């Protein structure tokens, strides 16, 4: 580029020298024509003003100096010039002696006849200097520009690009879940707002991420705990099902055992014209039981209808106790001649129950006993004796209902009088008698529209209607009357009803 500028400048220089040569050539032609050396020299000296011109000369057709001016007394130059002058290359030619000089020559023509050559020798020092200055200038400009650009770039980089890249880097880190520090912004411009906004966002994200991580951790812990609990619950459920199954099986087996105590109803046939028996424990086992024993011969029998404390398993336990005591009593009777007394039997139960269950004093925890009826029947002698703790005995003779009330004293409880003497009743069996011996489960059952107990009054009304029917039919009447009255209510208690026709 500098070569181009240099050449361009040189060309300009040459052009200006050529113009100068042209301007002076006419006057110089006249000087040469008229051999006026002085005027020629004077003209040539006017070129001294231009410091770039080192010399000028007029060379005749015979290659001799006509006039010259030489600013530089440099003989080397003159010798160089002399060499040139011997050159044939004269007509309007431009010569360079290295880069130091520019020679512009012009032939002087008079009527198209060559008479002399006019040359101007200009040094390129100024040109070089000019070029150098130009180069320097441009260099300074370039340097300055570069510096400016550098500073501007630095400024831009510092002010704009760096923050943007900082933000971009920070965003990338956030995207890749990497830890990001808070950004600092030294300038108070839009980036400050952006940085502050980013920092707030970053803090918020960090905080929320931390919260979420904590929640996730807690959720995982809770889930583990929950799974553990679920497993524990499942285990407990299996265990409970197992226990329930065993319990159910145990209770069913207990039911088997208890139902073995229930007398075969066919034995009633031997003693009574007709009979029925309803035995409905509230659960699989219950506290109600009825016992029937043949005594010393085929004419004597003992019937007991017992309602032990509670129902379910505890009640069933007490029935076993009652059976055991009953066994003792009947065994003793069977091996003796004593007169059977239902009242005495109840008293024996009273004493023995209290003793067996250690209910003789207030310290005892248990308090079990029973209410019930004991009937002694001698078919041959037509004797019916009975005693009752609490519960009535109903019987019909000649369509007339008679009721034997039970003593207001239960059997075997802690607060029972150990020496209590129960009342004994004798029933005249000279007439056909239909008897009903029941625990209170039947008449205590809740039901009906008003959710009231069935009651003895309602029972008596029913008995009035059905007592003449067959015992089998009466059994049905009892069952359906109970069920119809109960409706959707739960069964309150064990139900036992024995019907006898004598």
């Amino acid at each position, binding site marked *: 580029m500098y070569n181009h500028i240099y050449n361009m400048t040189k060309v300009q220089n040459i052009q200006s020298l050529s113009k100068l040569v042209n301007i002076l050539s006419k006057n110089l032609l006249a000087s040469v024509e008229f051999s006026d050396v002085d005027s020629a020299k004077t003209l040539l000296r006017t070129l001294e003003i231009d410091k770039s011109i080192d010399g000028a000369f007029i060379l005749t057709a015979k290659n001799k100096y006509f006039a010259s001016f030489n600013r530089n007394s440099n003989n080397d130059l003159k010798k160089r010039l002399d060499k040139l002058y011997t050159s044939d290359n004269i007509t309007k030619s431009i010569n360079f002696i290295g880069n130091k000089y520019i020679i512009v020559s012009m032939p002087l023509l008079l009527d198209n006849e060559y008479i002399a050559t006019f040359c101007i020798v200009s040094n390129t020092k100024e040109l070089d200097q000019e070029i150098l200055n130009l180069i320097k200038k441009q260099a300074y400009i370039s340097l300055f520009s570069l510096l400016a650009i550098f500073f501007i770039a630095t400024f831009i980089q510092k002010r704009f690009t760096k923050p943007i890249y900082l933000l971009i880097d920070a965003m990338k880190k956030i995207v890749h879940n990497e830890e990001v520090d808070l950004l600092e912004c030294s300038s108070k411009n839009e980036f400050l707002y952006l940085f502050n906004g980013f920092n707030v966002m970053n803090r918020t994200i960090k905080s929320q991420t931390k919260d979420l991580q904590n929640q996730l951790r807690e959720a995982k812990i809770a889930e583990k705990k929950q799974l553990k609990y679920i497993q524990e619950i499942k285990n407990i459920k299996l265990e409970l099902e197992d226990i329930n199954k065993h319990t159910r099986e145990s209770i*069913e087996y207990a*039911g*088997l055992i*208890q*139902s*073995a105590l*229930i007398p075969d*109803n*066919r034995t009633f*046939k031997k003693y009574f014209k007709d009979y*029925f*028996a*309803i*035995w*409905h*424990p509230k659960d*699989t086992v219950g506290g109600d039981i009825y016992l029937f024993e043949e005594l010393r011969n085929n004419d004597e029998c003992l019937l007991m209808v017992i309602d032990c404390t509670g129902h379910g398993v505890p009640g069933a336990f007490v029935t076993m106790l009652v059976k055991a005591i009953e066994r003792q009593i009947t065994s003793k009777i069977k091996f003796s001649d004593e007169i059977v007394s239902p009242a005495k039997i109840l008293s024996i139960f009273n004493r023995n129950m209290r003793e067996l269950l250690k209910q003789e004093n207030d310290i005892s925890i248990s308090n079990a006993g029973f209410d019930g009826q004991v009937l002694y029947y001698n078919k041959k002698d037509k004797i019916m004796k009975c005693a009752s703790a609490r519960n009535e005995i109903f019987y019909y003779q000649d369509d007339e209902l008679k009721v034997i009330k039970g003593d207001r004293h239960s059997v075997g409880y802690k607060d029972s009088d150990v020496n209590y003497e129960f009342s004994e009743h004798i029933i005249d069996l000279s007439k056909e008698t239909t008897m009903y011996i029941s625990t209170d489960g039947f008449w205590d059952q809740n039901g009906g529209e008003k959710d009231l107990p069935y009651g003895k009054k309602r029972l008596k009304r029913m008995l009035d209607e059905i007592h003449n*029917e*067959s015992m*089998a*039919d009466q*059994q*049905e*009447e009892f*069952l*359906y009357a*109970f*069920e119809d009255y109960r409706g959707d209510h739960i069964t309150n208690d064990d139900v036992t009803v024995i019907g006898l026709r004598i």
Partner: protein
Amino acid sequence: MIKILVVDDSKLARKRIIDTISKIDIQHEIVGEASDGIEGLEKFKELSPTLIITDIEMPNMSGMELVKAIREINLTLMIIVVSSLANEQVKQRLKGDPFSRFIKKPIKNNLLEMILIKVSHDLEKKEGEGA
């Protein structure tokens, strides 16, 4: 069509059973009634019912004796044993017999209905296999 024989010493009980069955929407016919086990066995042989409903506590021959006698002849006849006694022993004894069911009196409609539906299905299956 289910052919039913009702055996119970109580006339009232037989009537109630028949009334209960009549309310169930299943094709059936009451082919006979008996008042004790002996009569029940005779009618079973005579009438060839497909279902017997029998009480346990009956004179002359109890329900369980009737079941035993029937099983010597027919192992797959459906027998419903009813009782006013919550007799676990009877229940346990019948557990081993897939064609017997124990129902405590009074008989509940839905229970009887369920058994009748089963009997009806078994009958249809048998008739289908026979065809």
